[in-house]
C-alpha cells in the first residue's frame, strides 16, 4: 500500500503546484508547524509566514508563503495562498525588499502584539532564506 497523497497549491492567478506522489508535507500553520502524512484527519487551518516543505520519493521542494489557508480532506491537501514562491527561484532583491518593508512596518508604534509577532517571524524566515 502506498503512503502517498495529493497536494494542490493554488494562488488566485493559477494552480501553482499539483502533485499526487507526496508522502509528507510540513506547513507553517499559525499555531506551529504541522507535518501532514497520509490519512491525517480533516483539518482546516491558516498559515503564517514560513516555508512549506513537500517531500516526495524523488525530491524535496520548499516554498516560501506569506499567508494562506490549508485544508486537508480525503487525502488531498489544498493550500490557498496569495503569495508564494519556490525557494529555488528566490529573487534576492525581492527578499531583501520584503525584509526591509517588514522591518519598516515593525518600527511603527501602532501595531498590536499579534501583528508584531507575525512580522518578527516573517523577518526571521526571510533572513534565513537570504543566507542560504
Amino acid at each position, binding site marked *: 500500500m502506498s503512503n502517498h497523497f495529493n497536494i494542490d497549491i493554488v494562488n488566485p*492567478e493559477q494552480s501553482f503546484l499539483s502533485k499526487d506522489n507526496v508522502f509528507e508535507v510540513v506547513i507553517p500553520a499559525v499555531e506551529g508547524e504541522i507535518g501532514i502524512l497520509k490519512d491525517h484527519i480533516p483539518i482546516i487551518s491558516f498559515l503564517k509566514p514560513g516555508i512549506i516543505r513537500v517531500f516526495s520519493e524523488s525530491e524535496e521542494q520548499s516554498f516560501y508563503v506569506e499567508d494562506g489557508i490549508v485544508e486537508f480532506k480525503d487525502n488531498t491537501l489544498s493550500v490557498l495562498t496569495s503569495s508564494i514562491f519556490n525557494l529555488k527561484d528566490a529573487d534576492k532583491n525581492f527578499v531583501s525588499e520584503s525584509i526591509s518593508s517588514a522591518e519598516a512596518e515593525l518600527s511603527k508604534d501602532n501595531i498590536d502584539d499579534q501583528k508584531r509577532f507575525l512580522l518578527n517571524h516573517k523577518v526571521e524566515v526571510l533572513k534565513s532564506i537570504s543566507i542560504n
Partner: protein
Amino acid sequence: MPSLDDLRKRITSVKSTQKITKAMKMVAAAKLRKAQENAEKGRPYSEKMNNVILNLSKSITDKENAPKLLVGTGEEKVHLCIVLTADRGLCGGFNTNIIKKAKIYFEKIISENKTLKIITVGSKGYDQLKRQYKSYIVENISFKESKNINYFDADKVGKIIIEKFEKNEFDVCAIFYNKFKNVITQIPQEQQIVPLNEDKDDSGNDNDYEFEPDEDEILSNLLPKNISTQIFKAMLENSASEQGSRMTAMDNATRNAGELVDRLTIEYNRSRQAAITKELIEIISGAESL
C-alpha cells in the same frame, strides 16, 4: 445626388474605418484567449475558497455570534453595490448590459426606501451612472494603469469594502459583472457577497474537521479574503467578457463596413456610367444636328 468625387471619398473613408475595426477585432481575439485562460486558471482558487467556507459555516453551531460578514448585520437598510465595468468602450453592449442590470436593482432599492450606495470600478460604468445616480456614488475606482488584472487590485477593492463594513456603512453588498459564457454570450450577473449567500445543501456532509485555531478565528480571517477573491473572480470574468464582446462587436462592424463599401461602389459605378451615357448622348445629338 452626391458627386463622383464625394462618393470616392466616402468609399475610402469607410474602407479605412473597416481596417481599424478589423485590427481591433484581431487584437481582441488575441487578448480574449489570454483572458479566457486566466479566468480558467483563477477558478480553482475561488472554488476551493468557497468549499472551505462552506465546510466551516456548516460546523458553526453558535449562529448568533458568528462573524457578521457571514450572517449579516441583521438589517437590510443600506445596500452597497459594486458595479464592475470596463475602462474602454467600443465593445458592443458589454458595459450597457451591466448598467442595465444594476439599474433595475437600484430602482428596486430606491422604491423600497432603502439607502443606496454605489462604488463603480472601471471608468465606463462611472460615466454612464453619474448622470442619473451621481448622489449615490460614494467611490469611483479605475485600474486603467495596470495592464493585467491582478489580485493586488482586487484586494484593494476588497479592503475598501471591509473598511466600510467595519464602519457599519452598509448592511448588504452586491456586485455586478458580466459572466463569460462564450464569445457571443455574456450574462450580466448580480451576486451578493455580504452577507454570504450560502447554497443550502444539507447533504449531511459531516466531515469532522479539526480546526486550528478555532472556527471563529479562521472564519474572521477567511471572510475578508473571500471578498477579495470574489471580486477578483468577477474581474477575471469581466475581462474575458469584455474582449469577447469587443470581438463580436468589431466583427459586426467590419462586416457592416464591407456592405457599405459594396453599396457605395455600386452607386459610384452607376453614376459614373450615367455621366458617360449622358456625354455620349450629347456628342451624338450634337453630331446629328450638324
